[in-house]
């Protein structure tokens, strides 16, 4: 039997990351949390998540840089970025390097997030970003 998709949640706010993992598990996904960009990259290299949900503004390696590196390491991993504030500068920088991301703004309603996840995992299996 095919195992449930594995989703890696990255947020430096432990309550955000932890509660999202619980929501995802309650919906039947496998999920794990990391609290910074570097740990996320290491975890992704090891476990090859089907989907990455990543906060943008984090200390150290920010979410966009982490997502870019993970996309290189794991080309099949799809990405959802979310943020509590605008990250226009970081997004422009990524766009200049050929990585175009859109960002869901916090607070994201869990139903909206689950809808985006379903679309990425089921309807658009090879889409790499929303």
């Amino acid at each position, binding site marked *: 039997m095919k195992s449930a998709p594995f989703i890696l949640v990255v947020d430096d*706010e432990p*309550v*955000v990351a932890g*509660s*999202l993992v*619980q*929501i995802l598990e*309650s919906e039947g996904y496998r999920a794990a949390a990391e609290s910074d960009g570097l740990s996320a990259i290491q975890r992704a290299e090891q476990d090859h998540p089907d989907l990455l949900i990543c906060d943008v*503004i984090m200390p150290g390696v920010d979410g966009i840089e982490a997502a870019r590196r993970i996309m290189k390491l794991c080309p099949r991993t799809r990405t959802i970025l*979310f943020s*509590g*504030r*605008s*990250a*226009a500068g970081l*997004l*422009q920088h990524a*766009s200049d390097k050929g990585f*175009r991301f*859109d*960002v869901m*703004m*916090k*607070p*994201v*309603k*869990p139903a909206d997030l689950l809808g985006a996840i379903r679309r990425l995992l089921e309807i658009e299996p090879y889409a790499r970003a929303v």
Partner: protein
Amino acid sequence: MVGATDPDAVIGKSIYPLITPEHRERFRRFNENVCHGYKGSLEFDIVGLHGTRRHMEIHGAPLRDRDDTILHLGVARDVTESKRAEEALRRSEKLAAVGRLAATVAHEINNPLESVTNLLYLAKKDPSLGIDTLQHLLLADQELERVAQVARQTLGFYRDTTNPSRLNVAKAVDELLGVYGYRLRNREITVTKAMDSSVTVFASSGEFRQVFSNLILNAIDAMTANRGKIWIKVRGAHDWRDGRRGVRVTIADNGCGIGPEHMPRIFDSFYTTKQDIGTGLGLWLVRNILQKHHGRIHVRSRSNRGKSGTAFTVFWPDSNEASISLPGAKAS
């Protein structure tokens, strides 16, 4: 300066009738002081011969002749443009400061909002919950949505400027009407559209949606009875002042109108006439976004019983005007 085309219109005439009434007394005192031997300067407004208001600056000095009689030497200049530029700079600095503050506070507010939203979602899914507790959680969720809405409106000002793109204005307005379709149907409101479907504008879709969703929501909220009417007009246009190209969108309703006593304050923050449902931030935000993009907003309203209604007209300039198409096929 005063708009005279013929020297005879001004030579030998008193300047006093041109000075605005609120500045006349100060001007008179200034003149008196100079005539008593003091020098000084004064700023005042005049209304020229053709009704144009100008901001003036005058420097006056006493000159004494051989008999020690004091003559008044005054040099006045028109400082309207420099005052305008100064005010624009002050406004843009203020906006930049508000933007920086908003971005910082947004991060601090939206993260806990995200946590609480998630935790409430989890709590509601607990099958052992009693019906009362579930009701409490549903109510908490609704209240939280209000907080999120205020945060979006106030702190979202500098948000979603990430990827400005070329938007089809009629399509964007139609999408918004779709979002509010339930409310419109529920209140049996008829929307009549006259939209040029070919008009596009280069803008951030988030800001664009924020401006027009606020205006559409205001139109809906203005309806005191069911079966009201809203008219939406979209057309390519030029700014009548400087010729810039852009789009002009009019959103009109036959709702209760805005009383003249409210009109001067409708764009102020936290000013609302919608006692229970208003945040007082919608039009403030609309104006700020338009200022940021050098757009314009104009409002006309009547609150007379039976003839009431409001029309907001927005001019949104196109920052990449090469590709705006004018005119085009009408859609309705």
